[in-house]
């Protein structure tokens, strides 16, 4: 069993190397007829590049169906990438299997969208939290119990004794999500991937859960990939944001920069849909003006946003896909011909 080696990753982080490095990542799902004839594919993730530093919180923002969850699952090695490379702590993920894959999975925590669905309904909390520990060879009931209690208390379920013996359905949605976060933290990961962790929760507990994620991220110096379709939750909780559209990342920048000076017309559209953050209608989801989300089976030619783009330049945008790294500023990358 490979145990996490904090010293190695710490030194790597000190040298400024990212925890996660993604290059040209593609995840396509084959569409088959009669079970075997391939009739096409869903290009859910279609050429994604980014890096994630230790202790950094990065948001992935995009409308429904743009491939955010597929990206998350690919990073968790739940889907095999069609192409591209993922490096975690300097080790390529391709072809990892057996104990190496298991060790990797121990170093990445996963927080899902639906907290109730994420907890096996027939296990009590104690058992649910013991599972990852057992799988990763933490022997000794007492040691496991100690770590479980610590994790429960860390996520604010105090005293732990009140929660341990309960079943998921006996907890509120917020408490369930806390258990999910506790489970993600149990193996002392280096990175957490949170896929819309609050979108199924009551508005009243969303902030609490986001604060909790932010707090544990800081305390453990975790890399956190926060996936959301709701730009309004991004401002206070992340360092950097990436905007995803049609399986690609169209813009990434530090969050203040992105919100103040959006470079991609799609980001602009998202921001204008968000409206005034202080107004009553701030949380009302308004659709990005004009048109349908792009098909991932037959994506638009050239820039995938051009059919909906107000600034589309005929003869350019529909022909050639823009490279993802026009940089108006060093840490601001935009995939749009306007910035050529």
């Amino acid at each position: 069993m490979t145990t996490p080696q904090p010293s190695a990753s710490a030194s790597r982080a000190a040298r400024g190397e990212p925890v996660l490095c993604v290059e040209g990542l593609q995840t396509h799902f084959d569409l088959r007829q009669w079970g075997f004839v391939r009739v096409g594919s869903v290009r859910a993730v279609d050429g994604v590049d980014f890096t994630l530093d230790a202790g950094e919180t990065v948001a992935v923002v995009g409308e429904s169906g743009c491939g955010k969850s597929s990206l998350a699952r690919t990073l968790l090695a739940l889907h095999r990438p069609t192409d591209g490379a993922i490096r975690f702590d300097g080790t390529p993920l391709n072809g990892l299997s057996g104990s190496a894959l298991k060790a990797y999975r121990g170093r990445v925590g996963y927080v899902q969208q639906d907290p109730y669905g994420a907890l096996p309904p027939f296990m009590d909390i104690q058992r649910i939290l013991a599972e990852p520990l057992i799988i990763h060879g933490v022997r000794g009931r007492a040691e496991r119990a100690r770590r479980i209690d610590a994790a429960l208390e860390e996520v604010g379920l105090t005293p732990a004794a009140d929660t341990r013996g309960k079943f998921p359905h006996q907890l509120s949605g917020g408490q369930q999500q806390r258990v999910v976060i506790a489970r993600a933290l149990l193996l002392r990961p280096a990175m957490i991937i949170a896929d819309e962790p609050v979108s199924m929760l009551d508005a009243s507990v969303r902030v609490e859960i986001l604060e909790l994620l932010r707090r544990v991220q800081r305390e453990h110096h975790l890399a956190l990939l926060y996936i959301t379709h709701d730009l309004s939750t991004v401002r206070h909780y992340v360092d950097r944001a990436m905007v995803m559209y049609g399986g690609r990342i169209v813009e990434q920048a530090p969050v203040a920069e992105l919100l103040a000076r959006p470079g991609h017309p799609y980001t602009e559209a998202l921001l204008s849909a968000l409206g005034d953050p202080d107004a009553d209608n701030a949380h009302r989801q308004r659709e990005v003006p004009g048109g349908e989300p792009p098909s991932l089976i037959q994506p638009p030619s050239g820039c995938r946003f051009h059919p909906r783009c107000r600034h589309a330049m005929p003869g350019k945008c529909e022909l050639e896909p823009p490279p993802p790294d026009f940089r108006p500023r060093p840490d601001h990358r935009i995939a749009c011909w306007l910035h050529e």
Partner: protein
Amino acid sequence: MTPWLQGLARLRQYPSALAGLGIIALLVAMAVYAVTAIPYSEARELWRGGEAWQDLPTNASPVWTDRLLGGNAPRTIRVATDDVVMEQERYEGVRLQRAVLPVDFPYGGFPQEINLFVESQFDERQPFVRLTWRTPDGESIPLDARRVGESERISISQDRQLESRLGFTPQVGLFTDAEPGADDPQVRQGTYELVIEAIQFEETATLDANLVVYGQVHGLFGTDHKRRDLTVALLWGTPVALAFGLLAAVGTTLTTLIIAATGVWFGGWVDAVIQRLTEINIILPLLPILVMVGTLYSTSIWLMLGVVVVLGIFSAGIKMYRSMLLPIREAPYIEAARAYGAGNARIILRYLVPRILPVLIPTFVTLIPTYVFLEASLAVLGLGDPVLPTWGKILNDAQAQSALYHGFYYWVLAPAALLMLTGLGFAMLGFALDRIFNPRLRNV
């Protein structure tokens, strides 16, 4: 409290479930009693028949049915020389022994048979025995007079010579005062006596005699054609039936479930192979295969159990479990488990199977009697275990001896009632469990 315990606690709301549980508890108690009172090897030995049963009448019905119907059929009477005083006197170098065995006969019917079992020990010269029958009136009827060996059965009721002297078969003629050859001889109730007089030629020679006047009724459940008390088989049939039903149900349900979960989890060709095997297996008829195995190979109950389980693995249940497991396969908690490193075996056994286990409990409970019936059917077809007493074997014997034609209803009714009781108990419990664990059936 786990959902399981909660479900079980809800059983209290269903009187039928409690009744079912009561029946099952009774059967379990019978089974426990059977295995503790009569050890396995002894039960097998007893059921082989033979000397152990020589004191019992053949095909005697239960005492209580006769009494309930107002009958006064005779029970079996045993009197031994050990129970009475044996007089002795010496006479010209030999010893004369004399014992009087009283037979108290208050019944309304004639005995079935009369046997005297004689055991004697001597070095060279066999003792000489003379038997005399004395009626309550004091009338003496000389019976046999002969030398006896070390262990001998003197069948008084088979004595043809005596029969012609009495004008009736001996078991009738000895217990009536009707005229010889009368059409409808009546029993004369009272105390009869068998006088045994023996001449011993050796100083240390001994003689023990045991008179058995066989009744027409016996015990709680009667006896069969081999004089065996059906109680043994009815009692021992219980643990055998329960063990067979339980093991077969557990064996088939669990393996089927695990295989279904394996197919669902791996999908692809694994699933396809399992599906095709299931489809082939569904059209294979179980009973003829069992008959074939039984006829060609062995009818050991454990072999049958093995065949039932093996053929039950790829049963139609796989299709049902598959349809229940397919949506669970996509559950976020399974994805989460994979994300924290759970392997395939762990996901199948700890995440997929337990999820539908509660739904299977009712099916499982109702499956138990199905296998009990299957075992009984095999036994009735003559493919029962050759040595073990089971309910099915009793039915098989009854059928072979044309029990119903001869009016031995008890022979068929008792095992059939136990079989039905088993079915009823498990079915009542199973239906209630179905309502508890299968929410779609629960009435609001």
